[in-house]
């Protein structure tokens, strides 16, 4: 990853009626994406349930490091507050309020941002978390048959297998490379760029997954995933 990309990742702001909810969502998203700024804004100034316009305005500015900010919300009026705050910003184009499921959207957006994705892609990652069919049974010719595909059987040596944190690590590893990677377990297949899809495979520890990569960095992608698995996903 280049220094520029790491210096300016897309940030996230989580707007909720509840301080606890906002903090919980931010905690979960940050676990998956440690270098992404995820700022929770929940509750009113007096500590009750509601949204605090002034606090949202501040959080938007604080979460931006130059690459923009994706804003997630829980219920209708949080959306209105978020939209007003964006409209009042000096440059509203730096901020994108996304219609996404709060938890899944925040996790998907955080992982995309961690991988250095630009604002429109981070927003799409959040929005795509809504109707995503996380895993699919492949019907098209499998990537094994693509001439330049690189593949490997990878044993999941850690106890929990492709659970949330390992899935996020794997997705981040892939995101940095110029390669399309799918992970297969049993008769199901997931795009390795999607944490939610990887988790949806429910691949447990002690089992093997098949990693298939194409593209310029295909070999490197497979090698890094193998290393990651050998280290037990740093669990």
């Amino acid at each position, binding site marked *: 990853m280049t220094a520029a990309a790491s210096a300016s990742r897309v940030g996230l702001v989580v707007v909720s009626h509840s301080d606890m909810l906002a903090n919980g969502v931010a905690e979960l998203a940050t676990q998956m994406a440690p270098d992404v700024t995820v700022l929770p804004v929940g509750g*009113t*100034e007096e500590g*009750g*349930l*509601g*949204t*605090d*316009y*002034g606090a949202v305005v501040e959080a938007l500015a604080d979460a931006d490091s130059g690459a923009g900010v994706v804003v997630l919300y829980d*219920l*209708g*009026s949080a959306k*209105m*507050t978020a*939209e*007003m705050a964006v409209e009042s910003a000096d440059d509203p184009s730096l901020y994108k309020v996304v219609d996404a499921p709060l938890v899944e959207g925040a996790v998907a957006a955080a992982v995309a941002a961690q991988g250095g994705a630009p604002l429109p892609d981070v927003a799409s990652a959040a929005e795509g978390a809504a109707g995503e069919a996380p895993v699919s049974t492949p019907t098209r010719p499998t990537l094994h048959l693509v001439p330049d595909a690189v593949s490997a059987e990878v044993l999941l040596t850690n106890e929990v297998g492709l659970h949330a944190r390992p899935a996020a690590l794997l997705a981040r590893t892939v995101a940095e490379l110029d390669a399309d990677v799918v992970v297969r377990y049993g008769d199901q297949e997931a795009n390795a760029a999607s944490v939610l899809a990887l988790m949806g495979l429910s691949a447990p520890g002690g089992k093997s997954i098949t990693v298939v990569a194409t593209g310029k960095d295909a070999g490197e992608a497979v090698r890094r995933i193998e290393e990651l698995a050998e280290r037990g996903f740093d669990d």
Partner: protein
Amino acid sequence: MGCTAADVVAALRAAAAVVQEHRDELVRLDQAIGDADHGENMKRGFTAVLSRLDTEPPDTPGKVLKLVATTLISTVGGAAGPLYGTAFLRASAAVGDAAELDRDTVARALQAALDGVFARGKAVVGDKTMVDALTPAVTAAASAEGTVAATLSAAADAAEEGASSTVPMVARKGRASYLGERSAGHMDPGARSTALLLRAFADAAAKS
């Protein structure tokens, strides 16, 4: 004869008093179909408006409306904050720097407020929201004749009828929409507060 900044401030003081008086009623309405915070949120917002009008009284009607907007946006907490905030902000822009508001300006400000609520909340007539009170009020104000007080009085009458019309409606926007059919049989608290505010403005204008 038009409304000066002082008249607009007086109307807002009257509105704040009405919101205070009807706090419990708005809470009850919101308890039935929402999250029971509308009465308290409106009271908090208008209490903040009062204290800011005391400390920094603006010198034009437009500035008064803008101060109300920014105060409500930052203090109300629920959906009413962004919605009423946007309404007052658009009304403020519509009246501009005018030193006094005449009948036409008031009607135009109401139209701008409604446009703002449409843009912010994306609700339409029949969704069981404040739009059901504000829309007929704007229409009535546009065709009313005579003084500012008469215009606001016509708007308040129409808003009260509009608020009543929300009772049988099934909510399609806001927290009440989660109740589906069970939201029918209760007046929408936002429509009610809109009617209360317009009545307070009309009464204040009649006295000035």
